[in-house]
């Protein structure tokens, strides 16, 4: 009986096992490291064992490798029944490349901003009315993101539309104490910023505008009627 148990392992050994010694565990660890590194998908223990020389214990080798990578920039993770090497989660930000680019604000954005600055508080419908074209959500979002405009109080009219006002950040950026410091049309014209003469009949309208620019709270209502 005792003899039999002694003998059996030898008999059951395939020929290649006696010819080629099982590699030491350190070597097996190298193997699973290379396999996990190069594979396009996670690899199962069975698959690793199939690829490694006979007698290897991929499971144990993976465990050693897992411990070796503890605290490193990559780690050995289990994915279902398989294993893979992945970036340490805290270093995910390295997979991003940030570039900063200074861009001139689009014409749509600068016009929208100007209208908000001159007419605040102003609703989106009013901005569109003044510009003559619809204002994209992206433009408003951008200006809000830049912290140059913010939501003001809702207008007490049907639909209770939100209004937009400029922020202290806006004033700071443009070197203004208040939005009222913005020059009116008359001043713009005097400064040569307006070279195209107003169409006939518009002179009066301008006049009204300029007056109203001083009291900017009330301006918005003009368009609601």
């Amino acid at each position: 009986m005792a003899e039999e148990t002694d003998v059996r392992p030898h008999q059951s050994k395939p020929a290649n096992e006696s010819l080629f010694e099982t590699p030491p565990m350190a070597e097996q660890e190298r193997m699973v490291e290379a396999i996990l590194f190069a594979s396009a998908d996670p690899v199962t223990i069975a698959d690793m064992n199939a690829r490694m020389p006979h007698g290897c214990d991929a499971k144990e080798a993976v465990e050693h490798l897992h411990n070796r990578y503890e605290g490193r920039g990559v780690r050995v993770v289990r994915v279902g029944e398989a294993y893979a090497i992945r970036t340490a989660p805290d270093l995910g930000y390295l997979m991003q490349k940030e570039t900063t680019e200074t861009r001139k604000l689009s014409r749509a954005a600068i016009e929208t901003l100007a209208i908000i600055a001159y007419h605040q508080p102003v609703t989106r419908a009013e901005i569109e009315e003044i510009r003559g074209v619809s204002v994209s959500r992206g433009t408003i979002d951008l200006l809000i993101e830049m912290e140059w405009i913010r939501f003001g109080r809702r207008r007490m009219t049907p639909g209770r539309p939100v209004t937009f006002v400029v922020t202290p950040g806006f004033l700071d950026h443009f070197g203004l104490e208040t939005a009222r410091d913005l020059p009116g049309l008359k001043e713009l014209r005097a400064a040569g910023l307006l070279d195209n003469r107003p169409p006939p009949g518009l002179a009066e309208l301008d006049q009204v505008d300029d007056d109203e620019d001083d009291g900017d709270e009330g301006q918005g209502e003009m368009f609601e009627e």
Partner: protein
Amino acid sequence: MAEDDLFQEDKLSVSDRLAAEALIIDVDGFEGPLDLLLTLARTQKVDLLKISVLQLSEQYLIFVEKAKELRIELAADYLVMAAWLAFLKSRLLLPPDPEAEGPSGDELAAHLAFQLERLAAMRDAAARLMARDQKGRDFFARGITEDVERIKNVEYSATLLDLMQAYARIRTKDEFRPYVMDRDNVFTMEQALDRMRGMIGFAGSWTDIMSYLPGGWDNDPSRRRSATAATFAAALELVKEGHAEIRQSETFSPIQLRHRTNRDG
């Protein structure tokens, strides 16, 4: 010297004619006359630096002659080389003519030997190069890669002057224009982007971008055109932002979009 060489030619004729015949059968296997010369040179079983160029020229000429006998058509460059070697042979055999212009036979022979040695050296170098460990065969690159997401931070700039000019522009020009809603048939990229931003998160698998067209925009040709263009532009924008991946198998085939899955692990 001349007699020596003439004698040599006779001595060569048996074995070399046989060798030449064997080579002719395989003439397609040669990469040009220089390659053939190199093979012939190797039959001399000496260092390439010590080959007898005269003997080599004769071997080559025998080869060409044999080919003619067997009515095997040789490429023109083989014949050009034969003519040149015949000229070289005459230079080598005849006593140097002090009146003759140009290089001596020995100089020409030395250069041919150099060319053969260089070609042999390059062959050897090529073999050594290919014997190196190669990527994808002996060593491997990373199997699971991660894309580097490009995050573009845009800082917008505007001056007070820009602001005032913009306002002046609107107040003096656009205000007076009667407001007409003439954009019924235009679907803007911003609209498409808004729409797709909401939907892309749910699209885990490849989806034809045409399926992102808004309802009611796919019947009228002009509306469809506008919506398609806007959706396509928006899709590119999403890809640029790193939120989506886009592919097209070939020209004019459907363009497909899918949500870019974030790294897991």
